[in-house]
């Protein structure tokens, strides 16, 4: 279904959503941050940005969520299932790359068994994206098979066609339903071909060349070379819309507690530390390799999809300016034979 939406109608759109019982999540500026967060009015929405600081995943896989609660009474334990975590909402104005991450992660959360926390939220949330009309040098969606106006994962995609008008395209039944619910806000599609204002994102590397290289180069000096400056924090994984690793912990007083699922990241040395003290990934180069391998090799082998949407957030917010697309460019253009690790500086540091 195609429609148009006038900027002046954003107000009625947001009010309409509220009336229909949707919670609205949209980009909002607060000091130096632009975050996807709950809004009440259309005026709060921020449009003039390349990318929000937080990714859409926060609304499907929250940074911390209760997966069960329990009460301990002497020797007996009773378990209570969390309820009401999936709230009928609309994410409005996310970027297409963010939306594309959702169907990719559906695969792991449905692998053999279904994580209901993910799936029920997926069902409850409608994603309305706005195609990017600008980009920066960190963006590389076009290099990973997406585009600034990709429809993957979006229920509805808005594309700017003039200063005050957006083309509205529905991608899913859910999106169509949403448009129908708020029919009066939208206008009929334009006649003729609209002038889509979409950014041109430069293609930086051939993604097809990445996996074959990774297949051959589990041992390579580049891992250590590139990760030397890594400080081992979790920023890249936490801002990433496709990083989904998590931790499960109990938080409890004497009698009552919650089991909680928290974001976790492969760059932390604690991530894989055994109780015995042994750590299979004890050095930063191994952890950095894991991140790249997971995204561009392991996930592809398991689920036939790369685990990256090219949003560039990890590079933008890296405290040490590690740039993932730069790494992938090197990999994709490396014609050389697998280079055995021999030089002094490329040597993976010895295990702890």
């Amino acid at each position, binding site marked *: 279904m195609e429609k148009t939406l006038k900027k002046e109608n954003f107000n009625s759109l947001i009010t309409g959503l509220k009336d229909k019982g949707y919670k609205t999540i949209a980009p909002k500026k607060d000091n130096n941050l632009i975050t996807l967060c709950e809004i009440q009015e259309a005026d709060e929405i921020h449009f003039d940005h390349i990318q929000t600081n937080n990714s859409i995943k926060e609304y499907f896989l929250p940074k911390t*969520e*209760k997966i069960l*609660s329990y009460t301990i009474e002497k020797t007996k334990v009773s378990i209570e299932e*969390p309820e009401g*975590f999936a709230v009928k909402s609309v994410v409005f104005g996310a970027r297409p790359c963010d939306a594309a991450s959702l169907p990719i992660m559906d695969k792991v959360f449905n692998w053999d068994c279904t994580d209901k926390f993910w799936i029920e939220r997926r069902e409850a949330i409608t994603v309305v994206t706005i195609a990017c009309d600008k980009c920066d040098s960190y963006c590389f969606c076009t290099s990973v098979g997406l585009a600034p106006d990709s429809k993957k994962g979006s229920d509805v995609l808005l594309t700017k066609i003039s200063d005050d008008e957006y083309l509205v395209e529905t991608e899913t039944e859910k999106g169509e339903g949403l448009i129908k619910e708020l029919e009066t806000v939208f206008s009929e599609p334009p006649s003729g071909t609209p002038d889509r204002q979409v950014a041109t994102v430069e293609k930086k590397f051939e993604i097809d060349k990445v996996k074959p290289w990774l297949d051959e180069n589990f041992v390579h000096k580049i891992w250590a070379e590139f990760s030397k400056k890594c400080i081992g924090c979790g920023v890249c994984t936490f801002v990433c819309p496709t990083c989904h690793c998590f931790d499960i912990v109990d*938080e409890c*007083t*004497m*009698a009552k507690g*919650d089991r909680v699922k928290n974001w976790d990241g492969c760059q932390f040395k604690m991530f894989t530390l055994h109780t015995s003290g042994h750590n299979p990934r004890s050095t930063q180069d191994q952890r950095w390799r894991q991140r790249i391998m997971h995204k561009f090799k392991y996930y592809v082998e398991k689920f036939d999809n790369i685990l990256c949407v090219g949003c560039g957030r990890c590079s933008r917010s890296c405290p040490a300016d590690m740039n993932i697309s730069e790494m992938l460019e090197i990999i994709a253009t490396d014609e050389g034979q697998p280079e055995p690790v021999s030089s002094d500086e490329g040597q993976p540091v010895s295990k702890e």
Partner: protein
Amino acid sequence: MTEENKFEPRIVAFLCNWCTYAGADLAGTGRKEYQANVRVIKLPCTGGIDPLFLIKAFERGADGILVSGCHPGDCHYNSGNYHARRRWNVYKPLLEFCGINPDRIQFSWISAAEGAKWVETINGVVDTVRALGPFENYQKLNTIGSDTSVSSETG
């Protein structure tokens, strides 16, 4: 009784084993009465009280905290309370800076002979905190989801 009158503050007192705990003991053996709102935690020395203990006490529902040990110069371990004094001198302002009422965290030196001072001090803390009311700000700090009540449970 009205709802308001019902509030009885929960005070956690971290006491050094050698002075204040003995002082509190003396108050007891001397049959001096004081308000029963205090939960005493005995530790070897004020120098060994990690600031995290205070945070944990608030997390577990304390409305006020008293840290008390030997008078300067009387430390059983020579200098433990001097170190503690330095620590609290910067920690208390930090908590205050974060919006925690300074009256909720009090410090005192009470020797083993000062049973009366213990009674006076603890009554003072209880009364001050009672006047401040429950530390709802901290107890209502959200854990996960709005229905979680873990933070207000006493542990």
